[in-house]
């Protein structure tokens, strides 16, 4: 009964989505406030219905209802409860349901938090979101129903893909989807602006917190995905330029550009049509990512079971949604004229440059990702594009971005005085150069020019991120810091995070060392200053897998550093073999051990790595996301609402 209830809730949600799309739109057409108001209640009702459907599917997993085909395909009686709950999004159908849950969740959030918007704008935004829901629900109901029953009922499930049985992967997809789907709000705002022909500072101010929220989830999701790949795939890499990774990175790059161009549109009334285009593009690239992952047109490690019917549906959906969006853009965007003039040496000038670099980087990644497909389509054969291309193209594009970041706080809006700017960045620049040269020497005792350059850029970004709080502290002491708006704190933190990230990437790519060794119990190998000794390999049984678990002791000059337990697991239900690497980490270095293959007489082929500053790559990502949290919660976004509320409640709190 419960799965049928879930299916029914999805059908009902579809009906509500149609209402959410049609009625508010008609309301703005006819200027009928009551019709416009339907949007908010419909968005909330739809969220409730999808929540019910989602709960039903979770229930089927928790109760091990093997009669539901999707449950039987992605769980097993011995699968631990945590993974049975996360298995809901372990494959295509359920992950679409999670996607819907988030899409309707964002819609409900808009209906609650955007009450201060003009009625017609809110109605249009919710109607656009409703239209998107119609498409995705139709997709699920027609091609990917997670509640489908399957007879005869199998005795046991086929188990969740072992790759997904990892705490990192439990949270990675939901965060990523929150990001992808979150850009739908900015998209809906952009469409509303195009329909209404209005795009002013208020519009940018409404859109900013939504964009930043979506972006911060995407940032966390990508960071976590990289962390997971590092731990679970067993070859020490943290980014592979896999098509599906790129699919998440593309909206991130464009989303980052959007956050910055929104600032220009709000503060200076410039770059308006560009901002609207970016808002459409960020979501377009999210849709593209979905399409690439679920249609199987590119070779990737993230293969969802593919089905041509699904690919055709998503492609058609993509074509309709983006076709309408870009047509509206072509028709209306010329109306958005700039309100001011443009000087290159000004904050808006820098942000324009930032946008240029980010968008070119995104284009380069997109071309690299689609290139195999293009070559195949032109009949020129089969090729694949790997890390050498992406590194060669991407790194030169990010270096200028790191330089620009440093200038963010010292160059003001409109027109900055050259001498004032130079005075402010003089000392940080000197420090960055000296520090950048010193760092490789201090940490690795080996100076590489590229490392010094990376170190300089990183220190420059970090020092300059701290410039604004430092200046405020110098001027007004602690009060200067406590009164610093959250938006500025967010920028500081995110830019500092980028600096850390650059530092981590530089050092880990240039100074990592690795070795493939053959070790028997009691034997050891030396790598850098560390000695890795294989003490023993013992059998180990997890809930649904059997493993060979090695005990490896790491010492440095005879001093005990850590004991690691890398495993080679055999998952019983699917008979698949997985590597579970073990890592000992500190901010300065990771020590990484993975079991490769058993050899003769108890010996094992093993991989050991020493990776300096690996943690900084993820720490940087987390700081960026935290910066996003602060920026999105800046009180000036809430100010309008508070003002309105205090006006309607007599004697209410003063804003």
């Amino acid at each position: 009964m419960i799965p049928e209830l879930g299916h029914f809730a999805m059908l009902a949600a579809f009906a509500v989505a149609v209402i959410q799309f049609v009625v508010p739109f008609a309301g703005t057409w006819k200027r009928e406030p009551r019709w416009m108001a339907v949007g908010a209640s419909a968005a909330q009702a739809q969220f409730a219905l999808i929540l019910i459907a989602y709960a039903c599917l979770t229930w089927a997993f928790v109760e091990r209802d093997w009669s539901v085909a999707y449950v039987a395909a992605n769980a097993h009686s011995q699968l631990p409860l945590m993974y049975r709950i996360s298995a809901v999004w372990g494959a295509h159908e359920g992950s679409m349901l999670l996607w819907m849950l988030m899409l309707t969740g964002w819609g409900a959030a808009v209906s609650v938090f955007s009450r201060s918007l003009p009625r017609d704008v809110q109605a249009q935004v919710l109607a656009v979101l409703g239209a998107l829901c119609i498409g995705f629900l139709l997709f699920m109901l027609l091609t990917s129903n997670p509640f489908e029953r399957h007879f005869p009922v199998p005795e046991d499930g086929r188990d969740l893909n072992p790759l997904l049985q990892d705490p990192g992967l439990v949270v990675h997809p939901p965060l990523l989807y929150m990001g992808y789907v979150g850009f739908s709000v900015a998209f809906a705002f952009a469409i509303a602006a195009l329909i209404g022909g209005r795009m002013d500072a208020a519009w940018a101010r409404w859109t900013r917190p939504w964009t930043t929220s979506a972006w911060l989830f995407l940032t966390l999701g990508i960071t976590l995905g990289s962390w997971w790949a590092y731990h679970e795939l067993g070859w020490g890499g943290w980014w592979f330029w896999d098509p599906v990774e790129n699919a998440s990175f593309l909206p991130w790059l464009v989303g980052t550009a959007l956050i910055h161009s929104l600032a220009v549109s709000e503060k200076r009334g410039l770059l308006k049509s560009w901002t609207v285009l970016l808002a459409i593009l960020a979501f377009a690239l999210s849709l593209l990512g979905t399409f690439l992952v679920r249609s199987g047109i590119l070779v990737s490690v993230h293969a969802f079971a593919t089905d041509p019917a699904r690919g055709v549906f998503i492609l058609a959906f993509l074509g309709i949604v983006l076709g309408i969006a870009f047509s509206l853009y072509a028709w209306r965007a010329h109306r958005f004229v700039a309100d001011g003039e443009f000087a290159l040496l000004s904050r808006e000038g820098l942000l324009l440059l930032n946008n240029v670099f980010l968008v070119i980087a995104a284009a380069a990644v997109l071309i690299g990702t689609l290139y195999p497909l293009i070559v195949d389509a032109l009949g020129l054969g089969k090729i694949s594009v790997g890390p050498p291309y992406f590194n060669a193209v991407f790194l030169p594009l990010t270096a200028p971005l790191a330089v620009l970041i440093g200038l963010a706080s010292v160059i003001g809006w409109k027109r900055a005085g050259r001498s004032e700017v130079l005075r402010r960045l003089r000392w940080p620049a000197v420090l960055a150069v000296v520090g950048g040269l010193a760092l490789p020497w201090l940490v690795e005792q080996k100076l590489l020019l590229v490392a010094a350059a990376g170190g300089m850029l990183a220190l420059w970004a970090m020092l300059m991120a701290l410039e604004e709080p430092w200046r405020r502290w110098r001027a007004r002491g602690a009060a200067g810091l406590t009164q610093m708006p959250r938006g500025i704190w967010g920028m500081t933190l995110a830019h500092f995070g980028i600096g850390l990230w650059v530092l981590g990437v530089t050092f880990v790519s240039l100074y990592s060392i690795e070795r493939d060794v053959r070790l028997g119990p009691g034997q050891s190998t030396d790598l850098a200053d560390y000695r890795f000794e294989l003490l023993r390999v013992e059998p180990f049984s997890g809930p649904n897998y059997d493993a060979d678990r090695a005990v490896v002791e790491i010492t440095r000059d005879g001093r005990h550093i850590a004991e690691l337990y890398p495993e080679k697991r055999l998952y019983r239900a699917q008979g698949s073999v997985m590597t579970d690497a073990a890592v000992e980490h500190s901010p300065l270095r990771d020590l990484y051990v993975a079991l490769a293959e058993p050899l003769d007489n108890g010996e094992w082929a093993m991989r050991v790595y020493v990776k300096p500053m690996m943690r900084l790559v993820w720490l940087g990502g987390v700081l960026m996301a935290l910066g996003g949290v602060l920026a999105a919660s800046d009180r000036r976004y809430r100010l309008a609402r508070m003002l309105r509320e205090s006006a309607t409640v007599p004697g209410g709190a003063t804003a």
Partner: protein
Amino acid sequence: MRLRFLLPAAVLVVLIVLFAFGLQHDPREVPSPLIGKPAPDFALRVVGEDTPFSRDDLLGRPLLVNFWASWCLACRVEHPLLMELARQGVEIVGIDYKDTDADGLRWLERHGNPYRHIVADERGSAGLDWGVYGVPETFVLDANGTIVHKHIGPIDEQAWRRTIQPLLTTAPARAATETR
């Protein structure tokens, strides 16, 4: 309406055409020029023995030729399925590719032997003629020794049920019509 505002829409159209093409092609499929042709000749021997084994030993019934090696990780992934197929009576000839007899036999001893015949291709010469560029690869042969299908990478349930099994069962019929 100025033209530059039309640019995004134009890019979209190009991309959609590209994707529509992509949907009709499987990127994993690397076309083999050998499909529909007789399997290349070879003169090898059985692993651990001096018994010769050649193309003629593959004739007379449809079967699978599986290139594998003890050093190949992905071969362990498809191994349980091969064992299951062998239990169902599917004839699989294993060609031990660029491997030593001792390593190959020890591997089979440890994991089980799904092969009716195990053939040694120590230097990879047969693999070269057959166009193998990474183990495991599996060829479906009909009774005439014609290659009907080539599967690259580990075989999974889906590939077996959707593609290989139907080919194996229709292969003798096709062979019969061709000889007629």
